[in-house]
C-alpha cells in the first residue's frame, strides 16, 4: 500500500493531512492554560526547533531567489491578514456560517491553479474534489 501511495504521489499529502490534523487539535489543549498569543509564540519556537537544523542540512547555503522569497513573504503575510479577516467575521457573525464559508478556500486555490498553472483534473478527481468540499462543509458547520 505504501509503495502504491508513494508511486501515486499520495504519501506526502496524506502524511501532511494526518500531521495537520494533529496540529489543528493540539492548540485546543495548549489554550486550556494559556492565551492564544502565547501559544503562537511557543508554536513559532517549536517550528524553529524543526526548521533551524535544516540549515545544517543545507550547509548554511540558503538559496536567495528574490522572487521566491517575495512569494513566500506575500503568502505568509496574506495568511496572517486572512486570519484577521476570519476573526473579524467570527466576532460579528455566526460561527457556523463563517467557518463553513471560509473552509471553502481550496476552491480558490483550485481555480487559481487552473487559470495560472493550467492544472487539469480527470473526471474522478473532479468527483473526489467535490466530495472533499462537501466533507469540509459538513465538518465546518
Amino acid at each position: 500500500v505504501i509503495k502504491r501511495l508513494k508511486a501515486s504521489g499520495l504519501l506526502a499529502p496524506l502524511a501532511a493531512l494526518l500531521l495537520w490534523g494533529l496540529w489543528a487539535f493540539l492548540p485546543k489543549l495548549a489554550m486550556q492554560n494559556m492565551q492564544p498569543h502565547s501559544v503562537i509564540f511557543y508554536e513559532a519556537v517549536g517550528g524553529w526547533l524543526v526548521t533551524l537544523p535544516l540549515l545544517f542540512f543545507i550547509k548554511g547555503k540558503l538559496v536567495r531567489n528574490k522572487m521566491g522569497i517575495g512569494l513566500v513573504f506575500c503568502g505568509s503575510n496574506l495568511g496572517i491578514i486572512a486570519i484577521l479577516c476570519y476573526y473579524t467575521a467570527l466576532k460579528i457573525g455566526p460561527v457556523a456560517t463563517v467557518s463553513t464559508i471560509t473552509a471553502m478556500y481550496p476552491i480558490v486555490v483550485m481555480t487559481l491553479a487552473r487559470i495560472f498553472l493550467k492544472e487539469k483534473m480527470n473526471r474522478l478527481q473532479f468527483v473526489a474534489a467535490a466530495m472533499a468540499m462537501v466533507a469540509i462543509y459538513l465538518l465546518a458547520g
Partner: protein
Amino acid sequence: MLSAPWLLPSFLAIILWGVSMFLPKLAIRRLPPFHMTLYSYSIFMFGAIVLQAFYGFHIEFDLRGVLLALSVGVIGGVSQIIYNFSLHTRSITYSIVITSLYPAVATLLAFIFLGEALTLRQTTGILLGICSLILMVKASDQKTES
C-alpha cells in the same frame, strides 16, 4: 450587495487564504522545499514576535501548555516540510484537496482524546472525506482529461 456585515470579511478570508495557499506553489519553482520552509518559519517567528509586542511582551509560562505549544510548532514544521515536498512533486490541486481534509482528523482526535461528541453531520463529513481520499487514489491511475 453584501447584506450582512460579516460576509465581506468572510469572503476576504476565503480569497486571501486561497491566494496564500497558492503562492507557495509558485515559490517552490524557485526555492527548494527545505529552503522554503526555513523562510516561511522565519517570517512566522517574526510575526509571532510582532504579535507579542502588541501584548506588551507578556508571555505566559505553563509547563504543560508550553510543551503542547512547542509540539504544535514541531508538528507544524514537519508537516510543512512534507507539504512543500508534495508541492514539489505533485500538482497543487491534488495536494490541496487531500490536505484540506485535516479538520476530519482533528474532529476524530477530539472525539477519541477529549470525548467530544460526534454529530451525524460530522460523521457524514468524515466518511465523505475518506471516500474522497479513496477516489483520489483511484483517480491518480486515470489520465487527466479536462
